[in-house]
């Protein structure tokens, strides 16, 4: 029988995937633009920026719907969820992508590698991150992860003429593929243990307690945590991070550091909090351990770095640890704090890498600590902005970084996990040291020690309008979320409740 009876097309829930559709569609439009006529990639950037904003509008509408009517729903046979959690993180991805686009244009023009395809790939990647935020099925998790990762591999290697960039792309590809394989193994084991890849269904199975054998599920759980641990760069799965962050073009790093972490955490939260909620007592200690080594490892290793991009890479590892503590606390307050932290982190890290990209100059020559010597005298505005982001990352009150750390620690204290809380606060003090050191170099060390090279005399950094917009936005929100964080805290709180 060659002709089967007609397949009834499933009803399409366009609203559920509207933000993703817009991003993917914009990416295709950009490709078509390039095919028809090569224009200045700035136009591609403009289209991409408009696309992310449009996607954000749809995400906001989703958010408004699920929070006001309080009707989270599953769509496409339970493949994705449309709830507070997904809408919130989809929105955050839009922000990260928007900043990524804004910061890219000037940099790539300066480096002479501005190709419009960059924006298409960035949007594809963001689209994958959004799918990840909404994924309610392990297969969806995997596909979304591949979509976002493959684009990031390419973006890391974007500077074809720079061996550092090539190396970064290759390393990221190899270790990323490795971690994907581990994740896939975990998914297979979970499927073997439950007979489903749907996370909501999985939770039902566990609540009915008809699981054949927890051993398989536990093994799968560990593999999934390890696989996603690579993506969020948790110690001991962080080895790729410093090399990739150091080598990849800086705007890519800014986007990668924020977006890939959002996606990794989204997947981790969803899998553990929805699918494996019944195994909370098994995964919680794992996460506590992971959080402790990640916070301490990231903070301590960062001290040894003399390259600013590398240092920020380790700092982002430490941030992953702080975000993990929110999840490890196992409390609603902790998850809320972690979600808040992700947003604050997006602004801080995008801003910091944005400034570093400007100060590195053409060819990314100036990224070592010594190049930042006396930066305040040479580039007062940029140095101050960078110092501001550094203090925010160190968690100084008045910035979003403080509220974020505080919100996470509140959850930990709520769970009465005093050891984790103490380690967290101590790690945040340790991390303050290397942030401070960069500030010292920029503000307090005009004189050059013996045997050190005088920083090169360079003309003032030029600012493109898009860069200015991005930096103003990041600074504004880092302050705003530090002083009046109430609105976002409420949003994050709703995002955790509406699972």
């Amino acid at each position, binding site marked *: 029988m060659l002709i089967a009876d007609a397949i009834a097309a499933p009803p399409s829930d366009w609203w559920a995937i509207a933000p993703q559709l817009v991003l993917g569609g914009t990416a295709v439009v950009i*490709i078509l633009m390039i095919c028809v006529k090569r224009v200045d990639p700035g136009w591609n950037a403009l289209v991409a920026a408009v696309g992310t904003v449009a996607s954000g509008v749809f995400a906001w509408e989703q958010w408004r719907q699920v929070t006001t009517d309080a009707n989270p729903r599953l769509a496409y046979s339970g493949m994705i969820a449309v709830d507070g959690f997904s809408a919130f993180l989809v929105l955050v991805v839009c922000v990260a992508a928007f900043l990524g686009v804004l910061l890219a244009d000037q940099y790539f023009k300066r480096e002479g590698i*501005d*190709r419009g395809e960059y924006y298409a790939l960035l949007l594809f990647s963001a689209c994958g991150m959004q799918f990840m935020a909404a994924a309610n099925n392990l297969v969806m998790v995997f596909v979304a992860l591949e979509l976002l990762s493959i684009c990031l591999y390419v973006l890391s290697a974007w500077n074809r003429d720079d061996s550092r960039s090539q190396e970064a792309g290759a390393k990221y590809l190899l270790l990323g593929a490795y971690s994907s394989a581990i994740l896939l193994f975990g998914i297979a084991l979970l499927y073997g243990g439950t007979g489903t890849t749907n996370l909501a269904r999985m939770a039902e199975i566990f609540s009915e307690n008809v699981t*054949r054998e927890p051993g398989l599920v536990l093994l799968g759980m560990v593999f999934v945590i390890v696989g996603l641990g690579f993506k969020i760069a948790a110690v001991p799965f962080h080895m790729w991070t410093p090399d990739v962050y150091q080598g990849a073009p800086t705007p890519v790093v800014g986007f990668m550091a924020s977006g890939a972490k959002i996606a990794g955490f989204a997947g981790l939260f969803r899998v553990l909090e929805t699918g494996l909620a019944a195994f909370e007592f098994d995964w919680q200690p794992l996460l506590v351990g992971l959080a402790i080594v990640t916070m301490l490892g990231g903070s301590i290793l960062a001290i040894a770095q003399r390259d600013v991009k590398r240092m920020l890479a380790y700092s982002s590892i430490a941030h992953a640890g702080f975000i993990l503590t929110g999840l490890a606390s196992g409390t609603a307050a902790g998850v809320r704090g972690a979600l808040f932290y992700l947003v604050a982190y997006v602004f801080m890290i995008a801003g910091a890498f944005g400034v570093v990209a400007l100060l590195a100059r053409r060819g990314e020559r100036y990224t070592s600590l010594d190049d930042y010597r006396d930066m305040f005298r040479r580039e007062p505005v940029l140095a101050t902005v960078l110092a501001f982001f550094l203090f925010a990352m160190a968690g100084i009150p008045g910035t979003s970084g403080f509220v974020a750390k505080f919100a996470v620690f509140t959850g930990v204290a709520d769970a009465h996990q005093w050891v984790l809380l103490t380690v967290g606060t101590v790690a945040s003090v340790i991390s303050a040291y290397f942030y401070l050191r960069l500030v010292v170099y920029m503000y307090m060390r005009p004189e050059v020690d013996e045997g050190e090279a005088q920083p090169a005399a360079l003309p003032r950094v030029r600012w493109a309008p898009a860069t200015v917009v991005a930096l103003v936005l990041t600074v504004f929100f880092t302050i705003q979320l530090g002083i009046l964080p109430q609105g976002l805290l409420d949003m994050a709180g709703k995002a955790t409740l509406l699972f």
Partner: protein
Amino acid sequence: MVGPNIAFWIIALVMAYAGVRLVTTRNVVHAALYLMIVLAGTAAIFLLLGAEFLGWTQVLVYIGAIVVLFLFGVMLTRATYGESKGLDNDQRVLAATVAVIVFLVFAGAMWKAFGASTEIVLEKSTTVSELGRDLMTNWVLPFEAVSLVLLASLIGAITLARRDDPEHVRDRGVER
């Protein structure tokens, strides 16, 4: 169910042997061929389990495409055809230990989960038409997302590999 069991054990033993030879041989072409045996064995097991579509996909994709790709790679690069010391290294003991441990962990977990049931439970045999229907209804979203993955990889590969067309390279003012 004696016949399938006997068939399974024969296939499994052949696969195990091929797997060990795959990592111990010092000839890269042989290694590729052993890999083909392992993959073919996997396909055969899928067929035994009634997953005919999956089995033939395995043959098509892995044997038909990936192993052939390997062989092309060997031929197009300057890899040695014969015995090569480069295929061996000092960490084989460590690697073997890790492999054994991983095997034991997985085997243990599997055994605990399914060891008791001697029957192979096939809830339903998956035919191509059912798979296709499922793919177009329940799984349509990941299916479409995969097309995005492919598109993105394609674009990425092209942009990384292609040299800029000189006439499109605009004059980029050197900005510091």
